[in-house]
């Protein structure tokens, strides 16, 4: 490739590259702001931050319910996948 063509490719790359970098990080700014709001909301509502430091061997309802959740969620995922793929 002639050098000038290479250079034009480079300019093109620079334009696209910086656009993507800026777009990506700008979207990330908003994603992070959203995430922080979500975190604040969850923390205030459910006191998750406390749950996060609770003891490993909790045997309450929460976990029992969770087991149902596990199978329920995976079942739902499989159903969705089957219906869209077969």
């Amino acid at each position, binding site marked *: *490739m002639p050098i000038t*063509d*290479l250079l*034009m*490719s480079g300019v*093109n*790359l620079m334009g*696209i590259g910086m656009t993507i970098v800026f777009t990506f990080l700008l979207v990330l700014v908003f994603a992070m702001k959203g995430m922080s709001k979500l975190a604040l909301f969850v923390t205030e509502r459910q006191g*998750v931050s406390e*749950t*996060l430091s*609770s*003891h*490993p*061997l*909790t*045997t309450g309802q*929460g*976990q*029992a319910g*969770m*087991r149902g959740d*596990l*199978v329920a*969620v*995976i*079942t739902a*995922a*499989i159903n*969705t*996948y*089957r219906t*869209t*793929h077969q």
Partner: protein
Amino acid sequence: MIEIGFEPLWQSTGIANLEWGQVLMMGVGSLLIYLAIVKKFEPLLLVPIGFGAILSNIPLADISGSEGLLGYIYHVGIETGVFPLLIFMGVGALTDFGALIAMPWTLLLGAAAQFGIFVTLLGALALNFIPGFDFSLADASAIAIIGGADGPTAIFLASRLSPDLLGAIAVAAYSYMALVPIIQPPIMRLLTTETERNVVMQQLRHVTKLEKILFPFAVLLLCAIFLPSAAPLIGMLTFGNLLRECGVVERLSHASQNEIINIVTIFLGLAVGSKLSADKFLTVETLGILALGAFAFCIGTATGIIMGKIMYRVTGGKVNPLIGAAGVSAVPMAARVVNKVGLETNHHNFLLMHAMGPNVAGVIGSAVAAGILLALVGG
């Protein structure tokens, strides 16, 4: 000159190539991480497995492909069986078999609990009557081992007998191991009387250093004589335990218990996660495996307790049948659950140490069962 238009750029994004199945599997990965962090479900394994699932379902990146990081790790560590064996070495180095040596008869509790494995094998084969299921004998054996409640054994056997089901089997094994405190207590209460649960067991005798050193050789010797197909698993378990007990290789024992097991756990988890692809995981078979896993744990717990009741009779009431539940392994969670249920009946009856005997017996028991399945079904 490279002219880059909008169309090829769009085609290089993930969103343009995203398939439904990938989104769902990233959701499954996130769910596993959620359970690990918030509910403390076996986090050491489920965090890497969940993250591996997310990474390997990113469109285009092909991280679990043959040129991708997770693909390399799977190829080097799981296909060869090296990672589960190194974990087993670490488990051996972390386990004190003293309680078992003091009460050798509790090995029978560990044997009885393996019934869960073989009943589940039948269950898996029976599922073939339902349309959509097509488990071979090898598949059924790999699924059945979930009943052994032993992660590395399950991964080792699945990687040999049924690699396609490896992801679902590992997820089921670790999930149910985490659910032991939910699954076991009702069964324990159902099958035992208050009198039985009240039994206070004799204090364990002192175990000498020499016995602890001879123990791994005794186990390995029997394995070599009767069941060589279990030798890789039993061999690395006893090697790790010898490093721990022999007292002259502190550096190596420390490395097995820390550096090696930690590093391998990260890579093992990521590699297992890389098998959680939509076309292999989002099948009715996975639902069958999840159902069978719960079933296996229940049966294993029950047969362990029943053997406990037999020993209660035979010994004239010296054995608390609850400790039979610990025979499924899931070390040390199952032993703790025994202790907890025991304390509910009698606030001064600490069964933890007595439950450690059948608990570690369960590890040996399921390695033996894995060896049998490998010898009769594999190869």
